[in-house]
């Protein structure tokens, strides 16, 4: 039977009190969570329990993919003293993908995550009526509606359950302002939580094994419908070369999409390496065959190449779209094509730490339908 703790506080206050008690009892050394200061939002590493109050763990923003940041915290060596991290499901999924690529470790990390209503585009943080918008966001989530004004990627994201989190909080619950439940989703979590945090009860739900409230199921199926509608709108699979040129024609080759992508972890991207520098003889023959070449070259090659490199692991977080200076819907392209590739391999990034990334595995009888 799965366990839970019911806390009779608003979800933000309750979580902060839990974090403070974990810090106080020295069960954890620090908290990794979102903080907001005026029109700045960022992940913060908090060691002082008095600073926990400044945190905004459920602020609907993603200034950087938290999975990428946790990888930076843990890739040199796994951490020696426990830290609690409050992150979104796609950030956890990205982190698990990175761990499979030997870029981090879950050791000593207590992952707290929520059934995620989505986040807003990062530049909305400066909007004057932001507090009003955030209020509406939580109001929608509470009433099991998809909030408006989300990242386009969040509108089509059905992977809203943080299956691998140690502690799961359901933000799509109508009582959230007065009480909420901490779902204990791992043995690790059991070690951190005790009676001092509240009475440990049996839970009707087992989030990791697809047993959860009907309202969440409804939202997931709505989002799956949204994804189909969006695929019909963009028709990425029918672009052809001309369509690709139209879509990526604006690309200025800044590679910021790769820079913020949690899956693009290479210190020096292949497409920024000397290997890809435009060689004089290549340039000459390109110029002869086409009469004109674009400088810098290979903007579309970069996009397609990156797509090749990351599509099995793309978690659809939408960071890339948020930073694109020329408003290309990069995240939608990568998420849509990523989803198709993942379906082919029956692979869901971040779902299972033990499951190898399909491109690292050789199966003799795989995808034979693509032969010839």
């Amino acid at each position, binding site marked *: 039977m799965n366990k839970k703790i019911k806390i009779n506080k608003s979800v933000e206050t309750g979580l902060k009190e839990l974090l403070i008690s974990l810090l106080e009892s020295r069960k954890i050394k620090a908290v990794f969570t979102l903080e907001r200061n005026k029109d700045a939002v960022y992940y913060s590493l908090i060691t*002082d329990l008095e600073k926990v109050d400044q945190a905004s763990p459920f602020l609907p923003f993603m200034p950087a993919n938290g999975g990428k940041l946790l990888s930076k915290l843990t890739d040199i060596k796994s951490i020696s003293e426990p*830290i609690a991290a409050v992150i979104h499901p796609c950030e956890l999924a990205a982190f698990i993908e990175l761990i499979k690529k030997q870029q981090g470790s879950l050791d000593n990390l207590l992952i707290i995550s929520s059934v995620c209503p989505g986040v807003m585009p990062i530049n909305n943080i400066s909007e004057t009526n932001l507090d009003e918008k955030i209020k509406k966001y939580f109001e929608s989530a509470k009433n099991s509606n998809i909030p408006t004004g989300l990242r386009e990627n969040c509108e089509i994201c059905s992977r809203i359950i943080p299956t691998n989190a140690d502690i799961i909080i359901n933000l799509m619950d109508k009582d959230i302002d007065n009480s909420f439940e901490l779902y204990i989703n791992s043995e690790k979590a059991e070690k951190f939580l005790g009676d001092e945090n509240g009475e440990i009860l049996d839970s009707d739900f087992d989030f990791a094994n697809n047993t959860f409230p009907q309202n969440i199921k409804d939202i997931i199926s709505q989002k799956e419908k949204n994804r189909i509608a969006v695929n019909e709108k963009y028709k990425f699979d029918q672009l052809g070369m001309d369509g690709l040129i139209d879509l990526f024609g604006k690309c200025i080759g800044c590679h910021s999409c790769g820079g913020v992508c949690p899956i693009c972890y290479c210190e020096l991207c292949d497409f920024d390496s000397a290997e890809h520098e435009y060689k004089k003889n290549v340039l000459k023959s390109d110029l002869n065959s086409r009469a004109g070449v674009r400088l810098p070259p290979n903007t579309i090659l970069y996009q397609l190449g990156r797509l090749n490199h990351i599509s099995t692991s793309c978690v659809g977080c939408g960071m890339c779209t948020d930073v694109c*200076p020329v408003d290309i819907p990069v995240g939608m392209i990568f998420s849509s094509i990523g989803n198709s590739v993942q379906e082919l391999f029956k692979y869901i990034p971040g779902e299972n730490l033990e499951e190898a990334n399909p491109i690292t595995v050789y199966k003799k009888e795989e995808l034979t339908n693509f032969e010839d």
Partner: protein
Amino acid sequence: MDGVILKAQNNDFNKGIKSFLLSGLKNGVFDSFILSMQVPAKDSYAWILTYDEGLVKSSTPISPIMTVQGARALKSLRTGTPTQKIAVVMRPCEMRAVIELSKLNQINLNDLILISYDCPGTLPIKNYLEDPEKGEEVFNKILLDWDDKNIRETCKLCDKVSVQEEKTFQSDLHITTLGIEQNNFAIISNSEKGIEILNELKLEIKNLSSRDEPVKKIIETRRKNRENSRKELIPQLIGLDALSEFFSKCINCKVCRSVCPICYCRQCYFSSEKVKYSMEDYLLQASTRGNMKFLPSLLFQVGRMTHMSLSCVNCGACEDACPMDIKVGQAFSYVGDNVQKLFDYLPGRSFEEPLPLSVYREEEFKEIEN
């Protein structure tokens, strides 16, 4: 200043410039071109290297937005150019960055003929993308009236818009429209190479004193703009607290660096192993104040400033690309101006002027000693 006067019917400067370029192609002074050109979807511009007459005709040498800073485009020819007389038409700030990158051995100027033009500024990329057709309309008007209402903030503060007796930027030829009679534009030689080209083309050199006043006037306006805007900016930058606050929104995406023409390093120090720390180091840092922004971004911003501010040409590409609307271009331009003044150096002013950090002078900055 002297120069040759050419026709631009209906004040279509782009058309006039293209006729000049093609006449140069016919006369053999140019053999290919690097020009700005609308992309097929007609929603942006890209740099194109071509020798094809048709492509030149469909190019837009003076374009409404700076998508890729021109120097970054030229940098992709680092391993060599396929032709020897490439006419490159770019804005003054792009030329200045080209000169800086040539000093940093990232661009070889031998095969290039640098042609700058009177630049009224460019539109913010995002504004243009919202409605490219309207952007075209707005910019065509700006080309004639030089109204600065719709141009980027960093362009409003730029005083290096045209050539004057006192040299502020280097190119080979400069195209000028300010103070030239309607339906005409003029070309001024701005280097030895430029003089040779105009001689070769056997064009009649005339006195262009009519442009002195209008050029002076626009430069004065821009300087006044800068003075006024800095009154607001400076207090936001002085002191560590102010600086932290100024960059607090930074999400570490480093797009400012990616689009910067001067930041040419393949592997930036701030993305290298050198700045990787273990959790223990981070926890130690965090525990001094009780919390810390992760990842911290101020060191990157200040570090980048230290690395490139002597060569910063205030092109504003960083500010245009910043997803968080931080006035990063204005901050770098302010710091750059001050550092450059210290060394009496102006990036892109001349081919010859060496980078101050590459020169050792025994008697420098005595006043900072001890």
